[in-house]
């Protein structure tokens, strides 16, 4: 263990804990508390990378996140390779494996460095100017070559196996930056009892104080004061080290990226690698400090060149001397402190070169007293050294000074990046980022900013520093670098201005200055100064480029967070299991595409399923259909305004096909409207439009037609649906229906009856054109009914067969035949427009000239003249196989019933073209088709109904409740089913209902009332959820009877939700992994309830105890919500049980 440049003592490192790591092919030693950069410097490693464009050797410029040069790749195993990490931020740990970047084949000998020799031919705009012609060369030659030559680290080639988390948090005060000012602000805010989050991008709080052992605050050495101050902060302060505030967003939402495990040799299983915090802050205190500027002079980029303050940090914080013989070049007093400190540590300081004409003041005099020569009004004219600087030549052209280190200071740039994104929200800047240099002033101002009286702090040991001036710009020279990371020089800026670019935003884009991953942290001001000199302007008039998030790069995994794999998006599942089906995802649901038998292809299975429906009996799981219960005395009037038909003439027990238009007259959705009672309708929507239709109806009820006494309740998840279709369907069903005469049920009718002992709503309708039924039944009983029918030799059919069967009848499928530009008449459904019922939504638009043109696209059938041919959906339809399009194919299948391909198409003036021959152009040639009517299979005659003796249903099979992974601090369980009522009512009716059911309906938003075993949850100003023990059968009738003269809506929704309970000290934290609400007990007290989002699932969240929450989850989303909560609980899993898989 050599570490030749490690000091004998001192620093914040732990010399008792040596650490072994590797860099490229070398194994090296450092100490706990080191960064990779400090450990490399301790081992005299200065050449750590090659530059972006010219492959120039580069070293370590800084000691912080502003580092432009020392970018390395860290390899943590397969899939865990992270490129472009700043060596100055990588914490050393055992086994750390880092490699340098952008060198071929090795760092010391790099072939790419030849680009540096060719520097004059790589001016700004080089790529655009050079690789123009021929165009075809771009993809094949230029782009690959440029991508190979440019760039830094390589992207990992495998999927990322790590976990990442998001966390929503709320605080009164967010303090960004945990240096002197940030800590003092936290002291001030903590004293007020405010909820405070203090974050810092470094592993340790303290900022520059950690590099100031000679400074005392209230008698404490600065690093010790930091520890004491942090320990004195109250419980209301959350400390987030290794956490970068990377962006500020509207509403004072701040993004923080927290590094959790990269610094650990062996992270705990289940721990996320990084956590992205969404912090909603009452106010923000920015204490982000300042960044020292490099100086711009020829050859200013060699390894060994470093910011002066960084050298002090390496010396005092890490116990590392950055060289043996240093030259300091500065436009600022602070670099004199570096000269004095390095001298004291035994580093020879050959000279201080000061750009200012007359450097004076205590810091300067202290250095002069050490006998170190000071060259005033001077700069460096050039440097030499192949892989590290070995000498500098002063700008006088004569003085050459041997050295291995050049320390630069061009003054300090406040870190205002985030402030620039705050858009006028409540922010306060304190400390160096507010331009305050004096430490005592920083501390005093910051405590006041925190909300307390200004603190008084006794600071000693700091020399007085004169304010710095902007450094004089260097003359244009090819090798005077302004932007190290993107290799941009003063000459590039000169070239850009010569070509007419004068705006700083244009200079940025043309030269790529400030566009690298460091966002120009060390180059922005120098760019402005250089540009100002070029165009002879005052630098202060130039302006800044936009400070964009992220402040430092955020890895993609962190951005994605938990939205990966199963949690990427919820897939809703039907209560009917279909293990033998080929699954497909449709509109967020998992549906059965078809049910192939062993060895059967999808096409063969689909054909078999279609024929079974046409000739025998088939059944499909249609549970995904949207269902809305519409209740109230004005329900029929309301439906008349929403749909095209006239529902005042619909008798109870009847149902009717319905079309819904937008106000623009175009078809938006279709469905079945069934009248259960005078004031009660059951409406279905398409699967994909369920949420839209409910939203659309609520919109008109709340804002368009207020005053109608109508209420809506989604019952999509309250009812599973089995579509039983085919000539044998009545015969199959009848033995299980004890209480009505199936044979007496007319087409398009509905009955509330029973299937065995199961209460159902039975619809005599279908989507196949066959005799058929849709059985609406409680999801808990759906599997039982499905399995019973299956035993009666009913063929299961999937969505593929469903589409073919409906297309054969010419039935439209919303989203396939419609695209938001299609009218009812275009679809041949003009007869569905009720002309004499009065106004309805979309009616006025139907008479607009554009909607009545004779050449509109109209739905027709197409039969390919070659019967085996199946057209492609979306294919264009033309007269002659080329020329203008007449329309397009909307649906196309092979029909087993017809034994041929057939299609539906929207064709201009299509109905007048029936019998015509048209052509569908395809890459292999035009396909000739004949235009036909859109009905391909005639509606079959009904078979006479033959009654049959009753049969029993299969017995119910209990399904086990899921079991959660053990985690004592946050427990998760599925609760027993309950009786749930959705009540929608005006104030008077609500009071009456509350009296009737024995629990008052709360009028305070988001609050609940519990009485005996019943609870009423406020969900909206006219909406409540009533909870009672399972089997409270009389409750619905009680509630419905109550209002008498004051109408209201009461709907049993017991099946719609399943309740989960999450409890324990970490319950709120785990919920906040997916829920953006403030769950602090002051913001979300016991008894509060609300609909909200948990991940992408809408749930009802109810706090029933300090650490106990109930979550009512739509039953199709239970697996998703369960998986989300398990994911959040993973980091708290009991260790002994960390391998136990969760039951779904």
């Amino acid at each position: 263990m050599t570490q030749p440049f490690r000091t004998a003592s001192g620093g914040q490192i732990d010399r008792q804990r040596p650490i072994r790591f590797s860099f490229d092919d070398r194994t090296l030693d450092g100490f706990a508390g080191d960064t990779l950069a400090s450990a490399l410097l301790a081992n005299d490693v200065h050449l750590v990378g090659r530059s972006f464009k010219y492959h120039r050797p580069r070293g370590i410029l800084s000691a912080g996140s502003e580092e432009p040069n020392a970018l390395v790749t860290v390899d943590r195993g397969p899939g865990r390779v992270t490129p472009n990490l700043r060596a100055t931020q990588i914490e050393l740990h055992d086994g750390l494996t880092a490699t340098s970047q952008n060198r071929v084949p090795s760092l010391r000998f790099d072939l790419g460095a030849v680009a540096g020799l060719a520097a004059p031919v790589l001016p700004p705009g080089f790529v655009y100017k050079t690789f123009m012609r021929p165009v075809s060369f771009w993809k094949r030659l230029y782009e690959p070559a440029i991508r190979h030559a440019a760039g830094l680290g390589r992207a990992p080639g495998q999927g990322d196996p790590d976990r990442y988390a998001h966390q929503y948090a709320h605080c009164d005060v967010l303090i960004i930056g945990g240096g002197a000012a940030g800590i003092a602000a936290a002291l001030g805010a903590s004293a007020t009892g405010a909820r405070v989050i203090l974050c810092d991008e470094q592993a340790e709080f303290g900022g520059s104080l950690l590099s100031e052992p000679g400074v005392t605050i209230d008698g404490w050495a600065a690093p010790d004061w930091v520890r004491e101050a942090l320990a004195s902060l109250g419980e209301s302060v959350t400390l987030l080290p290794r956490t970068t505030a990377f962006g500020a967003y509207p509403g004072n939402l701040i993004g923080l990226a927290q590094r959790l495990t990269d610094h650990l040799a062996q992270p705990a299983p289940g721990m996320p690698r990084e956590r992205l915090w969404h912090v909603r802050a009452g106010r923000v205190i920015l204490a982000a400090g300042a960044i020292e500027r490099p100086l711009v002079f020829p050859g200013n980029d060699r390894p060994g060149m470093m910011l002066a303050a960084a050298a002090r940090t390496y010396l005092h914080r890490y116990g590392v001397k950055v060289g043996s013989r240093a030259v300091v070049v500065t436009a600022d007093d602070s670099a004199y402190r570096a000269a004095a400190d390095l001298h004291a540590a035994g580093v020879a300081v050959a000279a201080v070169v000061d750009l200012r004409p007359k450097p004076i003041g205590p810091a300067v005099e202290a250095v002069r007293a050490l006998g170190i020569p000071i060259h005033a009004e001077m700069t460096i004219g050039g440097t030499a050294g192949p892989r590290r600087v070995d000498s500098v030549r002063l700008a006088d052209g004569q003085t050459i000074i041997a050295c291995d280190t050049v320390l630069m200071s061009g003054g300090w740039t406040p870190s205002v990046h985030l402030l620039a994104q705050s858009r006028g929200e409540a922010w306060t800047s304190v400390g160096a980022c507010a331009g305050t240099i004096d430490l005592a002033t920083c501390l005093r101002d910051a405590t006041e900013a925190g909300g307390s009286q200004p603190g008084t702090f006794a600071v000693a040991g700091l020399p007085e520093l004169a304010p710095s001036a902007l450094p004089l710009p260097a003359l244009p020279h090819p090798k005077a670098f302004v932007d190290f990371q993107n290799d941009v020089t003063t000459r590039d800026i000169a070239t850009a201005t010569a070509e007419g670019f004068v705006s700083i935003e244009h200079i940025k884009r043309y030269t790529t200055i400030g566009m690298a991953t460091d966002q120009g942290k060390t180059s922005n001001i120098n760019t402005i100064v250089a540009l100002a000199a070029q165009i002879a302007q005052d630098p202060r008039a130039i302006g800044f480029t936009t400070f964009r998030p992220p402040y430092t790069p955020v890895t993609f995994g962190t951005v994605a967070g938990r939205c990966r794999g199963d949690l990427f998006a919820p897939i809703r599942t039907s209560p009917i299991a279909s293990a033998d089906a080929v699954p497909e995802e449709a509109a967020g649901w998992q549906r059965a595409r078809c049910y192939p038998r062993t060895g059967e292809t999808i096409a063969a299975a689909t054909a078999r399923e279609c024929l079974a429906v046409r000739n025998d009996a088939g059944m499909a799981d249609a549970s995904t259909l949207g269902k809305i219960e519409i209740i109230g005395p004005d329900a029929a009037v309301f439906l008349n305004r929403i749909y095209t038909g006239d529902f005042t003439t619909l008798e109870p027990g009847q149902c009717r096909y319905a079309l819904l238009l937008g106000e623009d007259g175009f078809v938006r959705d279709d469905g079945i409207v069934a009248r259960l009672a005078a004031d009660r309708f059951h409406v279905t929507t398409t699967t994909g439009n369920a949420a839209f239709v409910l939203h659309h109806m609520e919109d008109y009820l709340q804002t368009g037609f207020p005053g109608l006494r109508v209420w809506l309740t989604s019952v999509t998840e309250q009812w599973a649906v089995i579509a039983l279709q085919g000539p044998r369907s009545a015969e199959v069903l009848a033995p299980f229906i004890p209480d009505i005469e199936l044979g007496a049920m007319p087409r398009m009718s509905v009955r509330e009856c029973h299937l065995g002992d199961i209460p159902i709503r039975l619809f005599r309708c279908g989507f196949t054109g066959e005799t058929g039924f849709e059985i609406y039944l409680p999801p808990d009983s759906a599997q039982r009914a499905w399995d019973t029918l299956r035993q009666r030799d009913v063929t299961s059919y999937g969505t593929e067969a469903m589409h073919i069967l409906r297309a054969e009848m010419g039935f439209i499928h919303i989203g396939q035949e419609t695209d938001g530009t299609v009218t009812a008449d275009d679809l041949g459904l003009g007869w569905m427009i009720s002309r004499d019922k009065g106004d309805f939504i979309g009616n006025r638009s139907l008479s607009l000239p554009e909607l009545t043109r004779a050449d509109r696209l109209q739905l027709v059938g197409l039969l390919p003249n070659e019967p085996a041919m199946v057209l492609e959906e979306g294919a264009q339809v033309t007269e002659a196989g080329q020329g203008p399009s007449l329309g397009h194919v909307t649906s196309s299948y092979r029909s087993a019933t017809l034994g041929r391909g057939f299609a539906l198409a929207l064709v201009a003036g299509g109905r007048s073209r029936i019998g015509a021959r048209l052509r569908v152009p395809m890459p292999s040639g035009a396909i000739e088709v004949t235009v036909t009517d859109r009905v391909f299979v005639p509606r079959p005659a009904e078979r006479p109904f033959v009654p049959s003796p009753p049969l029993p249903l299969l017995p119910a099979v209990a399904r086990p409740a899921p079991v959660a992974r053990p985690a004592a601090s946050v427990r998760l369980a599925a609760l027993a089913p309950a009786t749930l009522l959705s009540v929608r009512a005006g104030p008077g009716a609500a009071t009456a209902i509350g009296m009737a059911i024995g629990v008052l309906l709360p009028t305070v938003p988001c609050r609940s009332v519990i009485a005996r075993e019943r609870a009423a949850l406020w969900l909206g100003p006219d909406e409540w959820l009533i909870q009672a023990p399972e089997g409270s059968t009389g409750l619905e009738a009680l509630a419905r009877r109550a209002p008498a003269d004051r109408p209201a809506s009461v709907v049993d929704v017991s099946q719609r939700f399943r309740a989960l309970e999450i409890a324990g000290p970490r319950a709120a934290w785990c919920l906040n992994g997916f829920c953006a609400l403030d769950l602090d007990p002051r913001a979300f007290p016991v008894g509060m309830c609300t609909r909200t989002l948990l991940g992408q699932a809408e749930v009802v969240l109810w706090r029933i105890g300090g650490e106990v929450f109930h979550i009512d989850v739509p039953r199709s989303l239970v697996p998703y919500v369960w998986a989300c909560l398990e994911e959040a609980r993973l980091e708290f899993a009991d260790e002994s049980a960390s391998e136990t898989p969760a039951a779904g």
Partner: protein
Amino acid sequence: MLLIPCPWCGPRPENEFRYGGQAHLARPEDPAAVDDAAWGDYLYTRDNPKGRHAERWRHLHGCGRFFNCIRDTVTDRIAGTYKPAEAPPI
């Protein structure tokens, strides 16, 4: 993500809401009495102000209510929200 003060539920994160377009567009009392051009305007013509904008939102994943909101389209700051029948705050 905006923080939107629902008139019923208080400030809530934007992901609970659904945007509803420009506010205060009254559906004509008798659409049949409106000529084609005026009806076309009602359907399709909208303001696109730089600055203060009255717009509709619905607390979709909350209390379900529609309401109106005055938002500055430049700064995204919300001056206030109010119930549908109410007048905009100043």
